[in-house]
């Protein structure tokens, strides 16, 4: 039996400690016994503890990838072992973090699918990652790093035990593997901890101190992590949001630009198999079944490939035409006989002559012979051929009728044909007409191929438009809007206090912004800085949404839609063609009215004038169109039609309600709304600048009484800052002095604000009213705001301020804004109003829609600023709360370090003796 060495050792020691002859043993004997036991335990039986393999781990950032891989493989091993019942406690503990990560990923993935905004989707993963990162980083940054700096050692020191498991050295204060630290290391730390060098058991004391510091830190970690992790994670997310947005917006934008350049390649990638399958199964299921309105509708829907329901409706109409339905009909001998038999009965208006007519009916054989000669039997006919077959029969029938019907004349013949035609046609193709024959299926397939081609291309155009300007968050235009408007806070120096005070109310924000503008514009340097920064920001819109982008987009639409329209038209899908480009609609515009009276001719000439085409040219276009329409060969027809569409500019003047127009307008309108808002902001700044500089030459000469000038300036400032489209429509409803003072003199401006001598609505007690009879007031205000003399040698209005001009020219915006102003001046200035029909800036009324005017006026600067102030207050408030909390927490945590590790130093006995003596 093997000796149980451990027991022997214990027993011998036991005897030694408790035995009766305790006194006999001296130190040497004790040591000898120990040596013997040790020898027993080691050399003699070759049994000794293996040397420890534990070591301190000093990992750096470079080890992170390796550590990560090792960690994952350890987790996998742990999971495997756990499920087969072989894992140890450490491994099972590790599984907890694996489970947490799995749950977290599950949540993030689900919310990713639930969110619709792209950056919000990715933010779910950023949120998860930042949460885990915060959990790991907080103890490192807030506790580990300061502790290391202050105390000189790593309280989060890791070690690898003999089993290869990685653990924290200080997690269990009752079990710290001190033997892993060398004396040198411990003494070095002791020096940093200012432990006196001449105390007994210095190492023990240093260890005690280190243990205390680590324990205190670990406790503080537990107390602070709950606050720190969510706050840190939220702040990281807040910071990351913009980056995520940019990261996904940039590639989106270049992808969109690429789409239009390589339209065909992208079109090929569109998956239409779903629609194809649906169509095929529908055709298969209904083969040789009656081709009625219901089936036509179903097929049209399947053929429209998920396009607009209007397309399906148009297709249904095209599939329901006689040409299409009767296409592919075959005539048999039986049918001819049957049709002939029915004719006398069908002629309902000739019932009395029925018997007589029956007698003179031609023999079926004759008719069949004639049809055979014309090659109209025994093969599939198209609609035209069917018509000629019908006319052969009708002619033979009608030929003998004058002999039996008394008083037969043209009218009789007309009535007779009217009665029999429809039924005759039906009888003739009765074996296969109005059925979904093989021929029809093939025809539908061909048509569907063309629709599919159009669908693919227009899908790419749709995708482009959606990425660029869709009415959704985080599309290019929305991102640009956010970026540019949020820069205004800094540009106009809107302080946190301004934000806090003015966030609830537009009126307050308006006043705040107005005084900002007055302050900025009255300081030359400040103004130059602000206008150039503003122009710089506005210019960034052109990076992804310039005029050339818009032009390229419209060109692509013209190409795709015109081609599709022509193809469809030549294939007989006239309704669909019309839906796309409103070709017939335009031709109707160009065609001379049937009634040539003054009214209709006046309308006609107005249209031509609007379309910028002469009567002669219009007539030529109509004639060309009609010639093309008569062409039988589809290919030739398409080619000629295409030529016509491309050659005559009037067809691209598409203000009609076509789908092509819809595509273009969707883009133009979104861009106009955003761009004009910024242009208006620049104009507002310029107007305030001109007032600040008292630069009224041109628009407001001193010949106008000073009181009226004061009114004009005040109104202009208000309208520029806060006006809506309706203010222009009503020609500015403004309460003025009915009897203004005739005094002249210069306007006095102090720090950007006009010091009114006369116009003091709140103080002077004058009763003010709106004066609709003053023809000039509106004109003058418009000139002061939008008139300009720098373009086209126009003699109206005012020049822009020099500093504004310089800044705009520098950023290449000058011409664009001048054009906008000019357009604005005439469009908004020449509307007719019920109250003031004659008040306009120039003679001619300009037709414009409310939508156009709405977009032209765009968003008022004061409203923009109000919204901006609200939004930035919300984000700012949240941020300041949590950044404050975070900083406070960090401060307390770090400061606590200075209180940690206080331990009374043991007295040095030698020193003590010295002191005593």
């Amino acid at each position, binding site marked *: 039996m093997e000796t149980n060495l451990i027991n022997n050792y214990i*027993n011998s020691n036991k005897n030694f400690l408790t035995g009766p002859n305790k006194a006999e043993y001296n130190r040497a004997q004790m040591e000898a016994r120990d040596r013997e036991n040790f020898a027993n335990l080691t050399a003699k039986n070759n049994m000794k503890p293996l040397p420890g393999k534990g070591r301190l781990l000093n990992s750096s950032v470079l080890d992170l990838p390796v550590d990560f891989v090792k960690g994952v493989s350890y987790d996998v091993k742990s999971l495997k072992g756990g499920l087969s019942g072989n894992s140890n406690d450490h491994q099972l503990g590790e599984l907890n973090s694996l489970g947490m990560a799995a749950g977290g990923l599950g949540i993030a993935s689900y919310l990713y699918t639930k969110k619709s905004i792209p950056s919000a989707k990715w933010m779910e993963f950023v949120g998860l990652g930042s949460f885990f990162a915060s959990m790991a980083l907080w103890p490192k940054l807030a506790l580990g790093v300061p502790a290391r700096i202050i105390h000189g050692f790593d309280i989060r020191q890791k070690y690898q035990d003999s089993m290869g498991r990685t653990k924290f050295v200080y997690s269990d204060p009752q079990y710290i593997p001190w033997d892993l630290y060398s004396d040198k290391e411990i003494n070095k730390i002791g020096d940093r901890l200012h432990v006196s060098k001449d105390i007994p058991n210095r190492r023990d004391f240093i260890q005690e101190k280190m243990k205390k510091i680590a324990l205190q830190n670990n406790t503080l970690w537990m107390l602070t992590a709950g606050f720190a992790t969510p706050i840190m994670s939220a702040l990281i997310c807040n910071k990351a949001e913009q980056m995520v947005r940019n990261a996904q917006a940039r590639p989106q934008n270049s992808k969109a630009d690429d789409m239009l350049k390589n339209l065909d390649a992208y079109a090929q990638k569109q998956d239409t198999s779903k629609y194809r399958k649906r169509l095929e199964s529908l055709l298969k299921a209904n083969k040789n079944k009656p081709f009625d309105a219901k089936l036509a509708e179903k097929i049209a829907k399947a053929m429209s490939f998920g396009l607009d329901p209007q397309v399906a409706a148009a297709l249904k109409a095209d599939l329901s035409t006689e040409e299409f339905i009767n296409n592919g009909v075959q005539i048999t001998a039986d049918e001819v006989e049957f049709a002939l038999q029915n004719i006398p009965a069908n002629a309902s208006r000739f019932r009395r002559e029925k018997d007589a007519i029956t007698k003179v009916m031609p023999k079926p054989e004759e008719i069949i012979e004639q049809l055979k000669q014309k090659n109209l039997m025994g093969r599939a006919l198209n609609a035209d051929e069917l018509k000629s077959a019908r006319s052969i029969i009708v002619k033979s029938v009608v030929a003998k009728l004058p002999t039996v019907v008394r008083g037969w004349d043209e009218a009789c013949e007309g009535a007779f044909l009217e009665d029999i035609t429809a039924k005759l046609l039906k009888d003739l193709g009765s074996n296969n007409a109005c059925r979904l024959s093989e021929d029809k299926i093939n025809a539908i397939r061909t048509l569907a191929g063309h629709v599919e081609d159009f669908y693919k291309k227009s899908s790419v155009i749709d995708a482009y438009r959606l990425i660029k300007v869709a009415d959704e968050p985080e599309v290019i235009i929305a991102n640009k809007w956010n970026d540019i408007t949020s820069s205004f806070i800094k540009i106009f120096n809107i302080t946190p206090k301004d934000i806090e005070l003015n966030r609830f109310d537009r009126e307050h924000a308006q006043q705040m912004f107005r005084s900002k503008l007055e302050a900025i514009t009255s300081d030359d340097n400040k103004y130059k800085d602000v206008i150039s920064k503003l122009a710089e920001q506005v210019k960034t819109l052109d990076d992804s949404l310039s005029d050339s982008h818009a032009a390229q987009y419209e060109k692509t639409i013209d190409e795709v839609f015109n081609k599709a329209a022509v193809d469809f038209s030549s294939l007989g899908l006239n309704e669909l063609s019309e839906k796309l480009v409103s070709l017939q609609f335009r031709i109707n515009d160009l065609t001379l009215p049937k009634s040539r009276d003054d009214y209709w001719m006046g309308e006609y000439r107005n249209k031509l004038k609007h379309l910028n085409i002469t009567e002669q040219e219009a007539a030529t276009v109509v004639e060309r169109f009609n010639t093309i329409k008569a062409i039988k060969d589809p290919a030739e027809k398409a080619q000629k039609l295409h030529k016509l569409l491309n050659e005559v500019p009037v067809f691209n003047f598409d203000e009609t309600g076509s789908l092509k127009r819809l595509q273009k307008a969707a883009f133009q309108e979104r861009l106009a709304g955003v761009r004009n808002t910024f242009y208006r902001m620049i104009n507002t700044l310029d107007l305030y600048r001109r007032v600040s500089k008292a630069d009224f030459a041109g628009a407001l000469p001193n010949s106008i009484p000073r009181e009226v000038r004061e009114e004009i300036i005040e109104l202009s400032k208000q309208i520029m800052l806060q006006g809506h489209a309706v203010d222009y429509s009503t020609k500015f409803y403004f309460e003025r002095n009915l009897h203004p003072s005739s005094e002249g003199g210069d306007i006095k401006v102090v720090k950007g604000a006009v010091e009114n001598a006369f116009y003091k609505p709140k103080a002077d007690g004058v009763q003010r009213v709106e004066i609709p009879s003053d023809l000039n007031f509106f004109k003058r205000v418009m000139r002061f705001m939008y008139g300009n003399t720098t373009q086209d040698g126009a003699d109206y209005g005012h020049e822009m301020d020099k500093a504004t001009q310089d800044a705009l020219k520098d950023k290449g915006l000058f011409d664009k804004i001048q054009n906008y102003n000019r357009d604005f001046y005439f469009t908004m200035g020449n509307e007719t109003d019920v109250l003031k029909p004659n008040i306009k800036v120039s003679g001619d009324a300009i037709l414009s829609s409310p939508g156009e005017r709405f977009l032209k006026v765009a968003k008022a600067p004061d409203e923009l600023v109000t919204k901006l102030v609200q939004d930035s207050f919300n984000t700012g408030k949240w941020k300041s709360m949590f950044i404050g909390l975070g900083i406070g927490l960090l401060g307390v945590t770090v400061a606590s370090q200075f209180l940690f590790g206080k331990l009374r130093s043991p007295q040095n006995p030698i020193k003590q003796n010295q002191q005593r003596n």
Partner: protein
Amino acid sequence: MVSPVNTSIMPTVNSNQGSIPVSSPHKINEKYDKDTLLKNNFSTNFRIAIDKLTNAATVYPAKGLTGNKNSNFYEFLTMGTVPYIIGSLTLMGVFNSANKYFEPFAKSKAAKIGNKMALGVLFYGLAKELSKSLITAPVKMATGVDVNLPYARVIYELPDYKDDTDITSIEYHKVFESVEFPRWDLLYGDESKGISRNAYYDKVAKKLGLGKNLKDSDQEVKPRIKEIATKTAAVKNIVPYLWAALGVGVAMQEPWDDFFKRFSNPFKFYKYSEFVEHEGQKWNFGAKLGATVQNMFQETGQAVKSFGRTFKNSVSELYKGSKNASKANIMAGKLMIFIPVIATVLGDWAIISGNKKAVPKKVQDAENTGVSPVIQKDRKYVVN
């Protein structure tokens, strides 16, 4: 020769290892003089939880922050609940506390998100904790092994000062919390009290299908129990997080918007107070109080009812997807529900079935050949 179990070779101060602590389940409020097995029931667990939570928030941080020499790993781990609770509250705060400064429209928008996030945090915690019993309860039923069996451990501390006599502290552990060193000793019966020494092991052996009246049932079932405990711990460390994810998924559904619109703040008691003066109201104090209390009950009742209904609708929405849900979202919602359910069933199955299958065969072999695979009588063993 003295049994190695009785005598320690390590110089342990104030060790309780004088005798084998053979114990029967005690009531929790007794003063323990040795490690004591406790009953696994609601009242015990509740009191343990309260005790741990109180200590985690008061005594342990105080000891830790002052660097007390008696602070230990158990206290550190117990304090782990503190960041969990504070963190949950902070997370709710991150999404809600700034809202009150916003203008009304932004406030209502922010509250909508904030409420759901707070609910998500709550459901995460609840689902995670409640789902644990979905794993342990079937295991207990099928195998007789209760991995949640608690015991009180008596710790002898170093005196804090010279005449400190209060040198014991109680820790609450679970018998199987360490799969490497389960507290087998606590599971032996006290024969002096008429409980057979192997009573517990006999019971488990019977449940595991090892047979009745085994000679050394403890030796036979210990490896089995260890395996069950290990597997349970593995499954328990992963699956509850899947349920927690499901909890968050349920909390993120639209029906909650309506619920919070109606029951936004349960603490606004003035909403149903009859003490607010109404026109022509001449009630005395008692009547007002009565009416207020009645209103409160009514409101609470409605809230509970509506909560249940909303919960049901939310689960259904998670499964079916909301009105404009994408296909991926509908699929993900279904997975959110099915994955934890399937994982739980598979987990339980892996824990239970793996053992039942293996054991009877071995026993059969042992009966056939006369050689037990567990204890081979002709071999010598060193008892550890």
